[in-house]
Every structure is written in C-alpha cells, then in structure tokens.
C-alpha cells in the first residue's frame, strides 16, 4: 500500500468520528488562565477605584463589597478551570463577534470578548466588564450559528446598557433609602408584628428587583435584536432561539433500564439485582407551593419565552439568509458537543453527570473507546469519593419532584453500588 494512501486511510479513520478517539478541547491553559485572571483583576480594581470616587460612606463601602464579592465568585469560576482558552474555539467565537461588531459602529470602541465555558447549565451571561461567557452546553439546543450570534448580541446589550452596574447601584441605594432605615429602626424597637412588616417589605423589594431583571431581559432582547439585524445573520433566528430556550430544562433523552445490565456486567463483576432496587417515595404528598407562599412568576428573573417572542416578533424580518461565519466549525462543534461535554463535566469534577451522559451516548455508539475510557475515569473518581464519604457531592439524592424517572433510576443505581463493586467496575472498564 502506498504511503500517501495509508496516510489518507489513517486520517479518514481518525476523522471518522469523535466516536472512537475523541480529543477534547483545551486541557492545558495555565498561562492563559493566569493572564485572564490578572486582566480581570485589573479591570475590577479599576472599577473599584471609580466607585470610591463616585460614592462615599456606607453606600460606597457596600458597592465596593458587592463588586469584590462578584470578583471572588467569578475568580472561582476561572480557578475551577471552567473557561476554555482553546485557540480554535477562541478563533471561532471571535469570527462571530467580529461579524457583530463590524456591522455595529456603536460597538467599535467597546472592549468586548467572549469565552466558552464548561459550566453544565445551558446559559450565557455578561459579567459586566465587556466579558461574555457562553456555556458550551447551550450549543446542544441550538440549530444554527445565527442563534449563537443572537445570544451574543443579547449579552452585549446587557453590557452596553450597563445592567450590572445599574442593578448593583439600585439594590444598594434602595436598601439605604430612608424608608428602609425607618423600617430597620421600627423593627429594632417593635415588640410585635416584626415578621409581617419585614416580610411585606422584603417581598415587595424582591418582586421589584425581579421585575427589574425581567425588564432588563426585554431591553436586552430588543437592543440585542437591533445589533443582530445589522449582521448578515437571519434575524428570524432570534425567534427560533427563544422557542428552543423554553425546552432547555427538559431532559430530551433518557438512559433505558435495559442498558444497566448491559453496561455493568463486566469481566469480574456480575450484575446484581439489588443495584436497581428503588427507594420508595410514594408515601410523601409533595406540595407544589414554595415555602414562602410567594408568587412564583413574580420571582422569575427572566420573562416567559412566549412573552419575549411576542415583544420582538414584529421587529423580526425573515431575511432567508443562511449566513455562517464558519459553518464547518459550527457543524463540527455540533457533532462533537456531546463528547466534549462528557469530558468537560469530568474535568470540572461533575463525575455523576459525566458518567450519565457517557452512558446515554454509549447507547448510540456502543463501540466507542473514548466513552469506555470516560466511563472508567468517572467510575474511578466516584469510587474515590465513596471511600471519602463524599459521593453525594457528585450523585445527588433522589428528588421525585425535580428529577426525571431516568435520572432517579440512575442516581439510585449508583447509590446502591458498594465501594468494592464500584472499584471493580472501574478496573474492568480500564482494562
């Protein structure tokens, strides 16, 4: 066989799928992460300097504390290695960002950057300093690149509308208002009806804050759509996206029960029927009300997707374009996303979720060596956790009202494995 032909065969074999030998994105990025953190700190320090100049007294201190707290929260995200610093991913997202900024002159002087994240929530957010985080998980629910474009436009709108700073300022100034101080004084003096007074105030305050949040979402939808319509993307994708978003909480596929004996009968471990004995929750009558008996809709930070669609529907024109900044990369990303998320979740120590997804994907691709390796790695990590009595950090307890039947079956199954059984399964999968 001629060498070039061999090379072609090898490449074809390798590229045939992530199914056999998947190579995840970006596993070594210490320097980039360090640099990002340094720059993020620098921006935050600058922000705090500005706050010190603008605000004084108690309000100034509380503003400072709020920004410091957000800094710590996001720093943890970075130190937990949730952000991707992969060149290919960065280049791709930069292409989409460039499509947006070059067609919107108002954004020319804005320092905006977008990063993908390993966070398993299907979400994207602006941290308020021009940095936008796009959780790769969201990609599972998107049909085309235009939807990524609209999400980024929406988050840019949050940034240009200065929503973060406005929210913090509003929140802190509102708790320093005279009526709050008067209430605090009254509560300290009062003997009776303290809780009723404070709950009424707190509820109104929280409803008002959530309402502001929902308004901000409408504003970001609207301004985001303005940015989006100037791009080459089909603006109708914004509506499609909002329709998809309403389904992100629903588990779309489950792990069939027949897969358990199939996957967990190994060389040195037979399947034990006690592994699938389910705990009984039938004696509980779960109430649908929340503990506080507050109105659930008033507590939402985001409006319903139907309301959002209604607001922007008239502004959207179906331009019938099918523009992509890089279709090949998008298509490739869509193909690899399920494999990538399995690795991602393992990387950030969501071993339970990683194992579950690996088992589900193995139903479609039973011969994948990559999936076998991921199953082995996750079982091993879970065995170590069980030894240290912290497996519940990775495998949640059953919650019949919030988990699907498939999830409950899986959590129950893993909980029923003894330490030696987990270790044996991990070893058998490795070998």
């Amino acid at each position, binding site marked *: 066989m001629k060498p070039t032909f061999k090379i072609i065969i090898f490449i074809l074999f390798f590229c045939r799928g992530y199914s056999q030998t998947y190579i995840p994105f970006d596993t070594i990025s210490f320097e980039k992460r360090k640099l990002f953190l340094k720059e993020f700190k620098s921006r935050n320090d600058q922000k705090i300097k500005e706050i010190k100049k603008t605000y004084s007294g108690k309000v100034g201190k*509380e503003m400072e504390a*709020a920004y410091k*707290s957000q800094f*710590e*929260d996001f720093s*943890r995200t970075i130190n937990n290695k949730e952000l991707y610093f992969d060149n290919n991913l960065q280049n791709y997202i930069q292409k989409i960002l460039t499509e947006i900024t070059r067609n919107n002159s108002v954004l020319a002087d804005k320092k905006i950057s977008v990063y993908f994240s390993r966070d398993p929530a299907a979400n994207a957010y602006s941290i308020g300093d021009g940095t936008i985080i796009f959780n790769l998980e969201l990609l599972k629910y998107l049909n085309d690149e235009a939807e990524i474009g609209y999400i980024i436009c929406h988050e840019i709108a949050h940034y240009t509308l200065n929503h973060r700073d406005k929210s*913090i300022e509003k*929140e*802190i100034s509102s*708790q320093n208002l005279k009526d*709050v101080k008067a*209430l*605090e004084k009254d*509560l*300290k003096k009062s*003997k*009776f*009806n*303290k*809780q*009723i*007074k*404070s*709950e009424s*105030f*707190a509820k109104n*305050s*929280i409803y008002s*804050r959530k309402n502001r949040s929902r308004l901000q979402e409408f504003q970001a939808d609207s301004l985001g759509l303005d940015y989006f319509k100037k791009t080459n993307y089909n603006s109708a994708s914004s509506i499609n996206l909002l329709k998809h978003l309403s389904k992100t909480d629903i588990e779309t596929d489950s792990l069939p029960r027949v897969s358990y004996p199939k996957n967990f009968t190994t060389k040195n471990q037979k399947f*034990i029927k*006690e592994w699938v004995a389910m705990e009984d929750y039938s*004696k*509980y*009558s*779960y*109430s649908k*009300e929340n*503990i*506080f*008996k507050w109105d659930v809709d008033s*507590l939402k930070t985001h409006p319903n997707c139907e309301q959002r669609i209604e607001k922007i529907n008239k502004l959207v024109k179906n331009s019938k374009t099918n523009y992509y900044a890089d279709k090949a990369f998008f298509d490739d990303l869509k193909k690899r996303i399920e494999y990538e998320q399995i690795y991602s979740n393992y990387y950030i120590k969501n071993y339970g979720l990683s194992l579950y997804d690996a088992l589900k994907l193995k139903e479609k691709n039973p011969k994948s060596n990559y999936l076998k390796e991921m199953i082995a790695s996750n079982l091993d990590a879970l065995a170590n956790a*069980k*030894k*240290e*009595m*912290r*497996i*519940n*950090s990775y495998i949640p*307890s*059953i*919650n*019949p*009202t*919030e988990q699907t039947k498939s999830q409950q079956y899986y959590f129950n199954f893993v*909980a*029923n494995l*003894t*330490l*030696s059984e987990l270790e044996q399964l991990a070893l058998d999968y490795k070998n």
Partner: protein
Amino acid sequence: MKKTYLLFFLLLTSFCFSQSYTVLNATAGEFMAFRPIYEDTDLFGYVELRKMNIDENNNNTIKYIVLDKNFNTVCSGNLTEKTSNSKRLKKLVDIQYAEGFIYFEFYEYSQAFGQDAFPYFKTYQIVDLKKNSIVNKGIYNPDVKDIDKQYDKIDTKGYFCYSLDKSGFLIQRTDYKAKIANEHNSFYAVNFKNEKIWEYKSTRELKKYDTHFTVVNYNEKYIVLKGFYKKGNKVENVHFLVLDSKTGKEIFYKEVSKEYTQTTDYTYLIEDKIYTGGRYFEKNKEGLYVSDKSFGIYQYVYDLKTSGTVREKYVNYESFTDLDVNKYGKIHGEGHLTFQKCNLNPDGTFFVLAEAYWEKQNYRAYTQLYTFKMDKDFNPVKTVKYEVKRTRGYKYDFAQRLANNSGRAYFFFDKNDDKDLELNILNYYFKSQKQVIQKMPITNDDSVINVFPAKSGYVGIAEYFKKPEKTGKFMEVRLEKLNYERE
C-alpha cells in the same frame, strides 16, 4: 443537626443578594427546632419549625417545613399558638409522626434571668400532611379553658405524647395531686382526629404510694410500660406492664425480680417479644446504686403472645472468660465497663458494645472499646477489644442499620494521634459476624464535619468549610450511604 436551620435562611437570601440583614433576619423568623421524625423505627423525614410573627394579642405564628428523608421539601404551613403574655415564650416540646399525621406539642415558658423557668399550658396541634391542613388543636388540660395566667395554679397535670403508628397516638397523663392513686398516671389513645379511642387507669395500687409509669417502648400493637410505686425515696414493686395499643387492655404484667437493683438500658419490642436489659447491682430499697459496683448485665425476654417468660438471665462479669475483669466490671489495667448498646441480630444472637472508663475528679476518662458476642441464650461467646485512645467523655455516638439489613454500623469518635477527633464506623455483618472499622478525620485543613443519623443505611454529614471564599459555600449537607461488604 444544629446548623441546618441556616438552609432556610440561605434559601431566602438566594432571592436577594444585598437586602438589609435586619430585614432579612426578621423576614426569615427565628429558628425554633429541627427534628427527625420516625415511622416506627424508620426515618420518615424532618421537620423544621420557625417562629415567624408575634402580634399584640400574643398570637405566635409558627412556620413548619416538612422534609422527606432526602431533605426535599414536602410541604410547609403555619400554626398559631398563643402565649398568656409577652414575657412568656412558646417552645416546642416534641413532634410525633404517625401514618401521614404530625402531632406537635408546645409549652409556654416563664422566663428568669434570660432562661426558661417553668412550663405552662401544654398544647397540641395535629397536621394532616396529605392535605397540609390542621385537623385538630387544643390545650391538653381540660381544666385550663384558655391560655391565661389565671389558670397557672391549676395547670399541674403532665401530658406526654407517643406515636402508635397506624393505631394513632398515645397520651400519658400525670397528676400527682390526684387523690385517687390510679389517676397519678393514666393513659388514653386518640385517633388522627384527636378523638379518644380508649382510656387506661391502673387497677393496682400500693396504699400511700404514688404510681409511676415510664413508657419504655411502643408500636401499633403494644405499649410497654415500666411501673413502680414510690413514697419519698422508697421504691416498690418495679414491674413491666403491657397494654394492647388498639384497646388499652392489659395483656401482660410481670414484677421485676427484687433480688437486685437494676438499670433498664434498653427495651425492644421485636415480633411479639420484649427484650429488656441493663446492669444489675446489690439491692437498694431506694433504687440507688454505685456505678462502679455493678455485678454484671441482665436480660429478660417475655413472650406477649403466651404471656410467658422466655428468659430472665443474669450474666456476671466473671462469665466473660476471655476478659480479665473483676466482679464489679473493672478490667485489669483498665477502667470499669459501661454498656452503650445491645442489639438483637437476625439469628437470635446479640451484639453488645461497651466502653471502659476511669473516674476522675471532674470527668470520666474513657479508654478501651469492647464488643461482646452473646449467644441466643445471652451467654458470652466472644469479646473483641479495640485499641482506641483515651478521651474525655464516651466515644460511642449512635448506631445505624446497613443497607439491605446486612448488618449495623456503630459510630464512635476517637482521637487522631492524640490531637483531633476522628470518626470511626464499626460495621458488624450479620451473616459473617465480621467486624470492620473505617476511620475518617473530623477536621482537616479545609473543613470540619458533623455527623447525624439519617435514613436506614445512610449517615448524614454536615461539612463546614473554613474558607468559604475558596469553595463558594460555607457548608454542605450530604447523605452518604454507609460503606459495607455485600455478603
């Protein structure tokens, strides 16, 4: 589980990141109690109580939150309890659970020097969990017409509630001012609507003596009482009395041997039999004993179906032939034995856990840990001694069943190289009769842990992180399945 009330507070703060803490604290109410509730011997779940609002008429709004065995919220609601004035505080006494109903008991306490002084006006409320509604409430003492200080002096009766599972609730009433002896201590059972099903007053008395009963065990079939008569310091006729839970009829009566003074450390109701035991001492008319002078351990087994005595067994310390111990339970080179737990195994044998201690000036120093295997007739079979460090205070904490009823786990604390406490979990397997110990540190560089009993086969762990800014949380509550070997 002292700090889990913060779960409620944290839930509230998740809605608002920068609310005034004065307002938040007032909104969240004041923590009152967090208790596990049991269905027979299995954990059903937990109940949290918070005192929310008190109005100018001294009506206390108390929020209850019921959690399932995994801490998932089942339901929540409000109870209203009155206090007679603003200086008295309403406190939870107890919570009982039976067949989807929760029975709350409250007292109001007068205050002295910032502490609870005297209890008054015991009240109850029954909540139907399926409908999440209050089905009945009231004041136990029928002579007390309202929560009002005018009734202080006549509120002299005591009331205690116990769950009878499917049979309802048992109420014990004490009234030592009653002139009729059988009214000193009487019982009645109520259904889930608090309607009286039966009442029991003892047909026996000892003239000039007060009648005392302690409820030592109970379930939907039987109520086991330990009774005696007391005049001043004199105690007579210690006996076991068993009532039928459904009818209140006496079905068993047995006087305890007068040969010795005894402690009753356990009383189990297992398959129509009572197993009761403890240590025995030289007979003392007042029932007093010196802890370091016990003669051994005893066990009585009574068959409630036949009303017969299966066994009344006394095991002196010299019977433990594989232990170098004197007749008073002092181990050679070590301290005195104290017994922490005695469990019946499925094969009819017994597993007994004990510790040895030295009496010091202000405390007891606990040294060795022992387990004793006893045969079906309660004869010593084998002793195992565990090398543990000297601790101030006893090591044993609680026991829990292993999954699939394959054995039991006994939790005890020991020192880690004479510094920090470490948790030891001693697994005893029924089939192989193997004993295995697993250790875990209570404190490390990052956190401190607390353990608490949870659902069968599990242990609850509350981990408090020393650097919450690093971990993003200041505590984590986990339910961990106990490690065990499948046999």
